[in-house]
Every structure is written in structure tokens, then in C-alpha cells.
């Protein structure tokens, strides 16, 4: 499956992956994240159950302290 992740094309095996799986595969280890699929926020509680499919646009924003 092909998706756009943070404006870059990415390819993964299979028809879908969960958000949690994506985080593991891409080594996104930051704790504070904002994740959107096709412009819609994915709630933290749903990372394990929300699936990403072929053609989806995913954005993962890493939040850092300061301000």
C-alpha cells in the first residue's frame, strides 16, 4: 500500500496498517504526537484500532517543549 506520510510517499506491505504499527515501523518514539489521517485527528485512544489504507494522507506532528 502507498500512502503520503508528512508529505513524502511511503510504501508498506499489506492492505492496511494500524496507527500504532506505523509509529513502530517508522520509529516515531516521541511521546507527544498529533496524528491526522486525511485531515482528521486520530484520538490517542484509537491509535491501536485506527487503520491506515492505501492512498491515505497521514500527518504526524512531533510536539516539543518551548514557548
Amino acid at each position, binding site marked *: 500500500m502507498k500512502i503520503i506520510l508528512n508529505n513524502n510517499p511511503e510504501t508498506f506491505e499489506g492492505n492496511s496498517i494500524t496507527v500504532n504499527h506505523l509509529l513502530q515501523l517508522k520509529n516515531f518514539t516521541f511521546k507527544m504526537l498529533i496524528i*491526522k489521517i486525511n*485531515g*482528521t*485527528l486520530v484520538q490517542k485512544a484509537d491509535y491501536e484500532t485506527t487503520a491506515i489504507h492505501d492512498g491515505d494522507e497521514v500527518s504526524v506532528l512531533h*510536539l*516539543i517543549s518551548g*514557548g
Partner: protein
Amino acid sequence: MTFEEIRNILQNKTVGIAGAGGLGSNCAVALARVGTGTLIIADFDVVSEGNLNRQYYFYDQIGKPKADALKENIKRINPAVNVLVHKICLTKENIPVLFRNCDIIVEAFDRADQKEMLIETVLTVFPEKPLIIGLGMAGWGKNDAIHCRKEDNMFICGDEVSEIGPDLPPIAPRVGIVANMQANIVLEILLK
């Protein structure tokens, strides 16, 4: 557009500013100078001496609640601005209430977990409201790394990598740049 035309538009607008620290105080002052009608400012903290290296406060305000001190400063710059202060900790319950009437919300928190809470709340409850986030402004130099990008109704200002730390403190120039970038995006949206 003349400044008078700009002011006529802005005086009917309301901007919410979550946090009155480095980003919030500087952003609020910029928006006050150009005549934004109403600023809603929320911060539970007090001014301390260490804040003065970047936050829009003065030595004689040390010990004062930031929200009150910022209101004072704004009133000295532009008395026409309506300033509503909330000396409370923002939560996902009160954000939808306090910022209900804002045309735009500016995220000006310090801690990453607070930023996360605010962004999640606004994206859930007010997905149509523009949200201007400050992300990555510690240290000095590296002007070129500071940028602003748009993701739907979210605007991210900063370099997105410079996290604050003991050897990378937030200090006036870079913090001021990001805070003013946030204010500049507010104008871009409101003056469209």
C-alpha cells in the same frame, strides 16, 4: 490597505491566546499594537525574574500574575484593545468554553503535553477555527530554520526541532521571531 482600513477590520476580531509566556506575551503585544479588537488571554503563572530574558514583562512586575501584567502592558500600548484574562489552567473542558468566540486561537504553551492537549481539543471541538502553533524556538542564530507551514486549519511556526533544554534555553530573539510570526499569520488570516 491603509493602516486605518486594517484597524477597522481588526477591531471587530477576537483572538484567543493560550499561555502568556514567551510566545503568548510577545504575540499578544504585536496583536495589540495593530489594534486587534479583543484578546482573550489565559495563564495561571506569575512573572519571575528568569522570564524577563524573553517575555514581555518588566522588572517591577515580578510576582504579578502574568495575565494581569500582560493586560497592564497592553493597556499602556493600546487602551482600545479589550483584554479578557483568565488566571486558570486550561483544560480540555474549559478551552471550548473560554475560546468559543475566538476567530483564531494562538497556542503559546511551554510544555509539549500542554500543546498536545490544546491541539487535540481544538481539532476535536473547533476543527474549523484557525490554530496557530509555536513549535521549536530554543537557542540563538539559525534564522533560516524558522518557518511557518500550513496543515488544513493548523499553522505551525518555529523550526520544529529546537526543544528547550539547559544548554539550549529559549531567549528573546528567536522566541520573539516565532511569536511575531504567529501574529503575522493571524493578520494574514484576518485581513484576507
